[in-house]
């Protein structure tokens, strides 16, 4: 049985009619839809269990705390983390990168370098610019070669004794390029640099065993992996997290407080000041359970097939250009494309009139757009419920799109 045939009935939103057509949702890389188990888990939590966590000595508080910490254990298992101390809940990928960039930024010295890549989402560029700004440090970037692969020779040249941090994406949110994470981490580590990996487009789609990747920090969001918005995960190798100085203060992140000083709490709570996203953690746990039931190998295989089909059928349409690695190459669950003579926003708006939702614009990756020499692109992206028929509907709509404006 095809994966989408198994899953589609679990996603109530897919029954929506948009502009007179059954919704074809091809924007899962921006945010995925949610199965009813996630929606119900959160609703049930609010209806029966909600209280603040950690500090409430009453039944609801204890139950809420147990659920919140159980969610952490589920995440730990899902990503293969060695211990639960390594799993910090954040507000999302952007928040996770900012947390690490803030903390590492304070250790930077003039002349230090942060190495990113031309593939990055703005959320993996701006926090590093901010970290570098007041410290006299510099942000440099690994250029691309071929169909959107990192130039590893350039990486070797850029990596040096002044490189303090190497921050890069696991899977490009535009081109779908899968970066050689383990190789990059090995080389960065040999140069004495700390590695930070943006897993926003990987965690929802690939089986993960983060410690095997060899990075120091890995971040991802819940809302792209069938879970709710407002929560994400920062995984840090235990020794990397232990030396990271918290930069955000508040309740729960401390052990003892005096007027002029404080002692930090243990990991992972040290990095979770304030009331955390509790219902969201419950929702994320339900999302992980859902994905684990499907099996991440199967999810990856399903989405790879869809990406391959999309590249093949779109390339065959006159006037349509596909960006990124060819169909035969392993790639993420996104395909960027453009239609000759049409602006990407008009492409998206015209497709929307047929109920087809795609992303269009610069995808928060303006340096990459410049590197591709375009203002923006349209992008189709997939999740567990996406189907081969939906790709055909997209192709069919695109074939006649130019006559419609």
């Amino acid at each position, binding site marked *: 049985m095809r994966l989408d045939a198994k899953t589609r009935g679990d996603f109530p939103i897919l029954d929506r009619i948009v502009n007179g057509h059954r919704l074809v949702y091809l924007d899962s890389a921006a945010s995925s839809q949610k199965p009813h188990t996630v929606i119900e888990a959160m609703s049930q939590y609010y209806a029966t269990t909600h209280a603040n966590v950690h500090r409430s000595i009453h039944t609801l508080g204890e139950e809420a705390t147990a659920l919140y910490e159980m969610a952490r254990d589920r995440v730990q298992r899902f990503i293969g983390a060695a211990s639960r101390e390594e799993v910090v809940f954040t507000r999302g990928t952007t928040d996770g990168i900012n947390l690490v960039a803030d903390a590492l930024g304070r250790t930077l010295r003039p002349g230090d370098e942060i190495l990113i890549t031309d593939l990055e989402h703005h959320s993996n560029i701006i926090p590093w610019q901010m970290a570098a700004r007041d410290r006299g440090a510099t942000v440099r970037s690994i250029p691309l070669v071929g169909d959107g692969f990192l130039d590893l020779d350039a990486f070797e040249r850029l990596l040096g004794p002044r490189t303090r941090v190497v921050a890069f994406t696991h899977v490009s949110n535009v081109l779908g390029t899968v970066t050689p994470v383990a190789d990059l981490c090995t080389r960065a580590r040999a140069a004495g640099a700390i590695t930070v990996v943006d897993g926003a487009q990987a965690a929802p789609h690939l089986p993960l065993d983060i410690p095997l990747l060899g990075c120091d920090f890995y971040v991802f969001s819940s809302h792209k992996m069938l879970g709710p918005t407002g929560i994400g995960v920062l995984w840090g190798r235990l020794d990397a997290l232990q030396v990271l100085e918290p930069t955000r203060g508040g309740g729960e992140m401390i052990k003892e407080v005096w007027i002029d000083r404080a002692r930090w709490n243990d990991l992972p709570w040290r990095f979770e000041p304030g009331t955390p996203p509790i219902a969201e953690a419950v929702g994320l746990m339900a999302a992980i359970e859902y994905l684990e039931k499907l099996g991440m190998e199967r999810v990856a295989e399903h989405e790879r097939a869809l990406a391959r089909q999309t590249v093949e059928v779109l390339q065959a349409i006159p006037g349509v250009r596909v960006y990124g690695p060819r169909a035969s190459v392993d790639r993420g669950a996104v395909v960027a494309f453009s239609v000759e003579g049409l*602006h990407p926003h008009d492409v998206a708006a015209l497709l929307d009139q047929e109920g087809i939702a795609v992303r269009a614009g610069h995808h928060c990756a303006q340096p990459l757009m410049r590197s591709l020499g375009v*203002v*923006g692109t349209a992008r189709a992206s997939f999740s567990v419920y996406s189907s081969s028929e939906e790709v055909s509907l997209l192709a069919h709509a695109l074939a006649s799109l130019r006559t419609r404006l």
Partner: protein
Amino acid sequence: MTPATRTGLYSDTIRERWRQPRFRGELPGATAVAEDVNPLCGDRVRMMLRLRNGAVDAVRYAGDSCAICSASADVLAELIEGRPAAEAARVTGEDVLAVLQADIRPTRMRCVTLPLTVLHKALQP
């Protein structure tokens, strides 16, 4: 001539202005030029004006932009050419929308207003 029809987002006016713009191009001898981007989509519009005796003698626009933004710039150029600069500065999004005759959604309103923002920049003393 048949009256323009409202056909959702892309009205006949938008289609026509997109296919056959009247004011797209460069303006040699421009005396006031401004450019800006729409942070949402990265669209870029440059408005070029030739001001003479306090009036907009000629106007052209250029840039990478969607059909709505291009049509808006084209209509705006038509609305202001030949008029006193002070009057040109008072043209509003409503005026442009009245000509476009389209159902512009809030998410695309910036596409309509970007040329106006750029025009105001160009007309700043």
